[in-house]
């Protein structure tokens, strides 16, 4: 594809890890590699130490919005910096992420003269806030030339509250970075190993459901590896749980490679499920709650097993069966290794380029 000048706008601080931020960073690097000119506008605490393609728009404030806490940036200074960045960049296309969040994305949509593409990450079709804000959002979002939703759940949210029919393009993963990650022997349980990844203190990530299920299973030699920040909850007596804290991507890949099963016991609010894709890429069998977003990633159970969301007893049974059936695990892993190629950045970035091509006529 012809090289374009592309401006990406991230609403949340890049210094803080998160799904949207990772997506924007990976996308920027992928587009640069494909020969485009890319500049990323993002809130940032630090002026230095950022990748060369990032322009810091100022310090973000942590605020609760639409069910989760994000570091957001708004106000006259942010608006002025966004305008300056747009003028300087003279972009062929501007691609904002999460334009319905009160942050840089929304500002850029209002200020950009060139075609604007927006990716909606959130999935919250019954959001009362978004229903109430519809009158504010719709006139702003009518400026969008193209809308992308990262999942069916995100698509429904857009159609419901923001107007317009988006195309679905999933989040990307660099499959190669996970494929062939090496297991770490000292992390392995005596009989079997299970992994959990996600902010430990956040109830909707479902760690307590998994701990309860493991208590019910009462299986000796089973170890749980927990990756993610936050204060560890009380671990029921007799369980072998190892908290590894927040780790980098390479270590996360090794944790996944060490585990026999990766469990995603999330109880709701998930739009996509990028960690499931990472586990599939690392060759780890996935067992996830049957949220629509997860079922979609797992091709309705063909590329990973599911259990009824929030049901610890059902999780205990499903996990036990999976650990006792290495053939089934191997089958699921094989299906998963084919499935993940659709989520590889090589595919995802091409689809996003196709969107740019349909809106950037210059």
């Amino acid at each position, binding site marked *: 594809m012809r090289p374009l000048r592309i401006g990406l706008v991230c609403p949340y601080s890049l210094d803080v890890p998160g799904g949207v931020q990772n997506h924007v960073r990976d996308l920027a690097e992928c587009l640069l590699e494909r020969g485009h000119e890319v500049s990323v506008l993002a809130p940032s605490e630090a002026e230095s130490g950022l990748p060369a393609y990032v322009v810091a728009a100022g310090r973000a404030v942590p605020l609760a919005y639409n069910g989760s806490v994000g570091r957001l940036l708004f106000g006259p200074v942010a608006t002025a910096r966004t305008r300056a960045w747009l003028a300087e960049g003279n972009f062929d296309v501007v691609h904002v992420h999460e334009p319905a969040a009160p942050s840089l994305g929304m500002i850029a949509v209002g200020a950009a003269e060139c*075609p604007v593409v927006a990716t909606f990450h959130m999935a919250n079709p019954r959001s009362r806030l978004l229903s109430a804000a519809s009158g504010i959002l719709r006139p702003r979002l*009518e400026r969008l030339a193209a809308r992308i939703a990262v999942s069916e759940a995100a698509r429904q949210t857009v159609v419901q509250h923001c107007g317009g029919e988006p*195309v679905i*393009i*999933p989040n990307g993963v660099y499959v190669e970075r996970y494929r062939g990650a090496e297991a770490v022997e000292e992390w392995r349980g005596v009989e079997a190993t299970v992994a959990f990844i996600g902010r430990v203190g956040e109830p909707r990530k479902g760690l307590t459901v998994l701990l309860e299920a493991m208590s019910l299973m009462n299986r000796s030699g089973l170890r749980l590896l927990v990756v993610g920040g936050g204060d560890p909850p009380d671990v029921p007596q007799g369980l072998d749980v190892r908290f590894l804290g927040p780790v980098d991507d390479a270590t996360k890949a090794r944790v996944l490679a060490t585990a026999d099963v990766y469990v995603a016991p999330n109880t709701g609010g998930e739009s996509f499920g990028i960690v499931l894709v990472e586990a599939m890429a690392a060759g780890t069998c996935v067992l996830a709650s049957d949220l629509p977003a997860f079922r979609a990633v797992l091709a309705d159970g063909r590329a990973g097993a599911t259990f009824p969301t929030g049901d610890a007893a059902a999780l205990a049974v499903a996990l036990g069966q999976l650990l006792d059936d290495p053939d089934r695990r191997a089958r699921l892993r094989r299906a998963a290794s084919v499935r993940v190629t659709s989520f590889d950045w090589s595919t995802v970035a091409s*689809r996003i380029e196709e969107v740019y091509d349909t*809106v950037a*006529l210059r």
Partner: protein
Amino acid sequence: MTAISWWVVGAIGVVVGGGVWLWLTAARLDRLHHRLDVAGESVHIQTARRRAAVLEIAGSGLLDGPESLLLVEAASAAYDDEAESRLSEVLRAVFDEPLATDDGAGRVLVDNLASACRRVQMARRFHNNQVASVRALRSTRLVRWFRLAGRAPHPQAIDLDDGVPPAFAGLDSGS
């Protein structure tokens, strides 16, 4: 000031405020119309590219004779929405399952066509989103009373079959 002059000041305020609102709304509508034109242009460009990609693959010897002929015929018809719909139909019949080719050049042609099909679909969808936005604003009472849309024609959604062949289907999270 007397009560009467307050009334005058108030009336001027209302008139000025209303004028500003009308001016802003007219500008907003104008931008919407402009974006709609761009989106319509994009549909034309993408359908033209799809035709080019079809002709290229039909002339490459990658497909059998009958399939190539069908494609050439469908891709050479005079341009209108109906002809594009027919081309989509023929493409779906020809590419009903993934084409197994180890030939690198052939792969490029197929990928190129797949991408062109997906872009036609996107361009039409984005265009029709713009149509909906224009219509929504034009249907508000004040825009109609003050004829802010001027002589701009009433926007029409593009109605054509843009179904992508199963072998090229977009990445949706479902399949």
